[in-house]
C-alpha cells in the first residue's frame, strides 16, 4: 500500500511538468501581447516595449522562459502579474479557496443527495418514484449547466427573492449554496443514476438473498450488505468527477459572479498573463490527481478484492 502511494505520488511529477509545459506553450502561441496591452489603445514607443520585455525576460526563447518559470516555481515564486504588479501567488491564494469551497460544497451535495436518491430509486426499481427520479435526472443531464444556472437565478433570485442574483461575498458559505447546487447538478444526476442501477442490480445478487435468509433486519441488509457493494462503481465515478466539477466551477462562477479561479483565469487570459494561467491550471491538475489518488485508496477499502501493490 505504502509503495503504491509513493509510486502514484512520483507519477505526479511528469504529469506536473507535462501540463505546465503544455499550457506554457499554449500561452506562448496565443496572439496578443501582455506588454503591448499595458498601453491599451494608445500608441507606444517600440523601444520602450522592447526594454520592458527584456526586463521581464519575455524576449527569451520559449524553453528559456519555461526554465525560468520552473526554477522560480521551485523557489516558491509563481511569478508576478505584469499589469497589476501583484504576485501570482497572491491572486491564487485569494481565488483558489473560494473555488475549492464551491467545489467541495458541490461534491458533498452530489454524494449525499445522489447516493440517497439513487438508493431510494434503486430499492423501488420500476415503480412510480423510480420513474420520477429517472426522468428528472435525465433532464438534468440534457440541460447545459449554464441554462440551469440562469434558470435557478431567475427562479430563486428574481421570482422568489430568496437569494441575491449574484454572490456578493465570495467568502460567505451561505451565498455559495445556490451556485454549488447548480454546479453539482450534472454530477448529481450521474451519481443518482449510477447508484440506482447498482442498487437495483445488487438487490438481485445471491449474497443479498443469503443476508435475508440469515434473518437480518431489512435495515441491516440494505445498510451493510447492499449499500457497500453498490457504492463501488459510484466511488470510481466520483474519482474522475472531481476534475469536471472544478472545470464546471469556472462556468458557474461566471454566472453568479463568484470571485474564484474561473474569474481569475478569465481576467488573466484577457491580459495574456501567462504565469497566472499556468499556475492556476497546474494547481487544478494537482488537486485532480490527489483527489483521484484518495478515491483509488478508498476503492481498495470498499472492495477487498482490489489490492494495490
Amino acid at each position, binding site marked *: 500500500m505504502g509503495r503504491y502511494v509513493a509510486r502514484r505520488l512520483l507519477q505526479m511529477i511528469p504529469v506536473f511538468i507535462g501540463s505546465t509545459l503544455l499550457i506554457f506553450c499554449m500561452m506562448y502561441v496565443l496572439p496578443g501581447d501582455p506588454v503591448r496591452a499595458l498601453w491599451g489603445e494608445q500608441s507606444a514607443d517600440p523601444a520602450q516595449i522592447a526594454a520592458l520585455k527584456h526586463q521581464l525576460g519575455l524576449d527569451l526563447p520559449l524553453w528559456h522562459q519555461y526554465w525560468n518559470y520552473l526554477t522560480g516555481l521551485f523557489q516558491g515564486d509563481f511569478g508576478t502579474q505584469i499589469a497589476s504588479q501583484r504576485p501570482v501567488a497572491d491572486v491564487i491564494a485569494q481565488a483558489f479557496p473560494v473555488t475549492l469551497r464551491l467545489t467541495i460544497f458541490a461534491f458533498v451535495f452530489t454524494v449525499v443527495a445522489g447516493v440517497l436518491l439513487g438508493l431510494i430509486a434503486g430499492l423501488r426499481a420500476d415503480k412510480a418514484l423510480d420513474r420520477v427520479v429517472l426522468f428528472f435526472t435525465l433532464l438534468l443531464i440534457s440541460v447545459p449547466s449554464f441554462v440551469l444556472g440562469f434558470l435557478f437565478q431567475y427562479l430563486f433570485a428574481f421570482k422568489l427573492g430568496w437569494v441575491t442574483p449574484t454572490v456578493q461575498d465570495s467568502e460567505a458559505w451561505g451565498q455559495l449554496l445556490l451556485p454549488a447546487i447548480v454546479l453539482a447538478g450534472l454530477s448529481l444526476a450521474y451519481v443518482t443514476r449510477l447508484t440506482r442501477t447498482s442498487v437495483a442490480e445488487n438487490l438481485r*445478487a*445471491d*449474497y443479498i*438473498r*443469503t*443476508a*435475508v*435468509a*440469515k*434473518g*437480518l*433486519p431489512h435495515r*441491516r441488509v440494505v445498510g*451493510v*450488505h447492499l449499500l*457497500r*457493494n453498490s457504492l*463501488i462503481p459510484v466511488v470510481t465515478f466520483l474519482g474522475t468527477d472531481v476534475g469536471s466539477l472544478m472545470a464546471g466551477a469556472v462556468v458557474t462562477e461566471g454566472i453568479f459572479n463568484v470571485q474564484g479561479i474561473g474569474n481569475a483565469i478569465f481576467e488573466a487570459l484577457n491580459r495574456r498573463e501567462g504565469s497566472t494561467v499556468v499556475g492556476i491550471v497546474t494547481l487544478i491538475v494537482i488537486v485532480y490527481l490527489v483527489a483521484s489518488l484518495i478515491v483509488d485508496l478508498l476503492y481498495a477499502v*470498499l*472492495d*477487498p*478484492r482490489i489490492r494495490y501493490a
Partner: protein
Amino acid sequence: MTLLEVRDLHVDFHTRDGIVKAVNGVNYSVDAGETLAVLGESGSGKSVTAQAIMGILDMPPGRIPKGEILFQGEDMLTMSKEQRRKLRGAKIAMIFQDALSSLNPVLSVGYQLGEMFRVHQGLSRKEARAKSIELMDRVNIPAAKDRVRDYPHQFSGGMRQRIMIAMALALEPDLIIADEPTTALDVTVQAQVMELLADLQREFNMGLILITHDLGVVADVADKIAVMYAGRIVETAPVKELYKAPAHPYTRGLLDSIPRLDQKGRELYAIQGLPPNMSRVPEGCAFHPRCPAAQDICRSELPPLAEVGAGRGSACHFWKETLGD
C-alpha cells in the same frame, strides 16, 4: 414429531410473458433428524418451494395464492414479517449452491459468521468473533484463527461451502435446507462436504431438506425422497423402496438414467423430450408428452397423489402397473 409440513403449496410468478405456475400443490414433510431428498429436473420448482419455506421468494413477482407451511405446528405464511425473520437463520437455515456468489464479497467471513450471533443473540463483536472461530474449527477449516479476517475470494470452493455450512449451523437450527450444496464443487471435495453436512445433521438431530440432482448422494444420506415434476410432487417414498421399485414412470426414467457400474459401456438411458415451459404446463398429467406409458386418460385427467403403500405416494394413473413391472 413432524418438524415441517408443506401442504398444498402454490407459487406463481407474474412475469411479462404471463403467469408462471412454478409450484402447483406441493405436499411434503420432514421430521427432526430426518433427511428428505428432493429430486427433479431443472425448473421443476425445487428451489422455489425451498425459497417459499425460507421466506425469501422474490415477491413480487412471486405470489403464494394457496397453501400452508407448518413449522413446529404453526403456519409460517400467516405469521408477521418480524416473527418470520426471527425464525430465519435461527430455527431454519439455508445452504445455497454457489458459495462464492452467496457470500458477500466485501465483508470478511468472520464478520458474516459473527453477524448471526450479533443479530440473533445480541453478542458483542468480540464474542461473536470468538464464536466464529469456533464455528470455522468445527467445519474443519484449517488455521481458523488466522483466516477469520479473510474474505470469501481468498478461500477455495470447498472451504467456502464449509463456511456456508458453518453459517447455517451457527445457531443450531432445527431445520436446514440445502439447495444443491455440492453441485458447484470439484468432484473430489463433493463427498467431503456432503459427509460433513450429514455428520453435523446427526449430531444436532436436525431435519434436512436436500435438493440435489445426484442420485448417488441421495441413496447414501436420505431417509425419504420427493420427486418433483412441473411444480408437483409426482412420487414420494422411503429411499430403499423407491430405488427398488419406483411407482411413477418419471422416477423410473430418472433411475434408469444413472450410470451404473454393471452396465459400463452401454448407452445411457435418457428421458425423451424436455421439461415443460412452466407458463404452459400440459393438461392432464404434465408428464404425458414424455411418458412411454401414457394413455388417453393421461392427456385429460390430472392424476392425484395416490397412496400406494405405507408412506408412499404416486401421482400416476397407472401406478399399479408401473410398480408391478
